[in-house]
């Protein structure tokens, strides 16, 4: 809808009064918010505060992308959800909460995993994207899709006590385009080198801060009020309470929008991020149901749990606890004469453990539990605690 066609009701004028009375903001900026369509990718730690503030602020149309369901372990930081929503799709839980907050906002739900096949379709109708996803393939996917579609991308990322924010691919009033994620980091770290939040943890308040900063930048991008965080990269260390803002620039060798672009369509981001390295020898796998059959039939095998002691305390399925970091020192405790099933929370750390054990100690009898203890809980013992 064009801005000139938009009118506020009395209720809306009253609701947005604290915005409208700011001289630099006014009714004009509020109208721009109402006319805007914003896509929030990920409704978790970063998406929760971003969605709450953008809904409260009166963005007219908000799209939400998430394929996940609400889980107990989300509630430590994902303030959009409560205990009544556990097990329900996040996008639907989010809409219930947000509609109760502001009935003047229209929500579009994308209850799906965003990937190269659907990203352009999902993103194309929005004016601004805010990326709050949790893995490198999706970061590069969202970056490239917003470049190909010419949309600004409000980026936020967190790890443990540290957060990062920037506005990528923003075109200022002079027509100058700002840098993007590929200018900053041409390639991602190889898998396993940088732990994810699921493995490394994150302090619950931090995504509240960083996601709120993303909401702030979205509002600035839409309204043109203030100076968006383009060409600058903000980092916040919650532990020391130190923040820094670095200058970042476009690079001629950017493969998507540099001098000689080679990427003109979305690629396979899992492969780009090394998730499907072809040279790696496949590891033997076992499904949760098959493991259950082994147990029921009384097959002789050994079970090794490579999670951390704190996770073991939440839930365990009878494996011997040898945390990943100590596996190499305890290789002699792992039998070689019978099959051994190695597991962790979701199957990533156990894969790493098996690779290392095979490489350094020549094990040939190790099986990775596909989907980890979570798959076992889902498929075999749903009464156990998920986390």
């Amino acid at each position, binding site marked *: 809808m064009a801005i000139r066609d938009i009118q506020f009701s009395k209720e809306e004028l009253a609701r947005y009064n604290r915005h409208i009375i700011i001289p630099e903001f006014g009714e004009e900026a509020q109208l721009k918010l109402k006319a805007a369509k914003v896509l929030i990718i990920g409704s978790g730690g970063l998406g929760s505060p971003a969605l709450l503030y953008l809904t409260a602020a009166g963005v007219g149309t908000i799209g939400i992308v998430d394929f996940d369901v609400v889980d107990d372990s989300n509630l430590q930081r994902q303030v959009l959800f409560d205990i009544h929503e556990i097990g329900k799709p996040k996008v639907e839980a989010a809409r219930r909460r947000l509609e109760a907050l502001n009935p003047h906002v229209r929500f579009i739900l994308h209850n799906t995993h965003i990937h190269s096949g659907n990203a352009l379709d999902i993103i194309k109708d929005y004016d601004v994207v805010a990326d709050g996803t949790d893995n490198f393939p999706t970061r590069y996917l969202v970056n490239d899709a917003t470049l190909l579609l010419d949309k600004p991308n409000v980026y936020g990322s967190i790890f443990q006590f540290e957060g990062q924010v920037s506005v990528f691919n923003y075109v200022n009033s002079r027509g100058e385009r700002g840098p993007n994620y590929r200018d900053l980091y041409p390639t991602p770290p190889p898998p396993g080198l940088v732990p994810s939040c699921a493995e490394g943890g994150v302090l619950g308040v931090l995504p509240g801060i960083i996601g709120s900063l993303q909401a702030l930048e979205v509002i600035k991008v839409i309204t043109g009020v203030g100076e968006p965080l383009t060409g600058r990269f903000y980092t916040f260390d919650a532990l020391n309470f130190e923040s820094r803002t*670095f200058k970042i620039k476009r690079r001629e060798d950017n493969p998507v929008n540099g001098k000689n672009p080679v990427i003109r369509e979305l690629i396979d981001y899992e492969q780009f991020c090394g998730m499907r390295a072809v040279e790696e020898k496949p590891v033997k796998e076992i499904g949760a149901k098959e493991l259950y059959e082994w147990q029921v039939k009384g097959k002789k095998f050994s079970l090794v749990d490579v999670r951390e002691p704190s996770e073991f305390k939440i839930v365990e399925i009878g494996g011997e606890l040898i945390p990943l970091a100590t596996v190499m020192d305890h290789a002699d405790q792992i039998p070689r004469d019978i099959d051994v099933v190695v597991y962790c929370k979701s199957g990533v750390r156990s894969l790493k453990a098996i690779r290392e054990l095979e490489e350094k100690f020549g094990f040939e009898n190790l099986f990775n539990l596909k989907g980890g203890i979570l798959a076992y809980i889902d498929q075999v013992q749903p009464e156990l605690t998920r986390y």
Partner: protein
Amino acid sequence: MATVIIPTPLRKFTNQTSRLQVEAGTVGEIIEKITQDYPELKKHLMDPQGSLRSFVNIFAGDEDIRDLQEGKTPVNPSSIISIVPAIAGGTH
């Protein structure tokens, strides 16, 4: 001595130290010294060919060393050198 800011993901390799004081003339010398003192940092900062990894940026003050003289960027005792790696957390 120049100050080097170590980011959260790399502090496990520096005994949880977030700031290092290093006597050096260039950014390259700083990297050489800290990876000597903390050898595990090396594989996170440098690729096998000895170049800075492409998912790590180093800033001298607020400037990317790629926009200065890269490893040859001079430092002085008041320089603040920040190591800023890619992190990807958000949803889960």
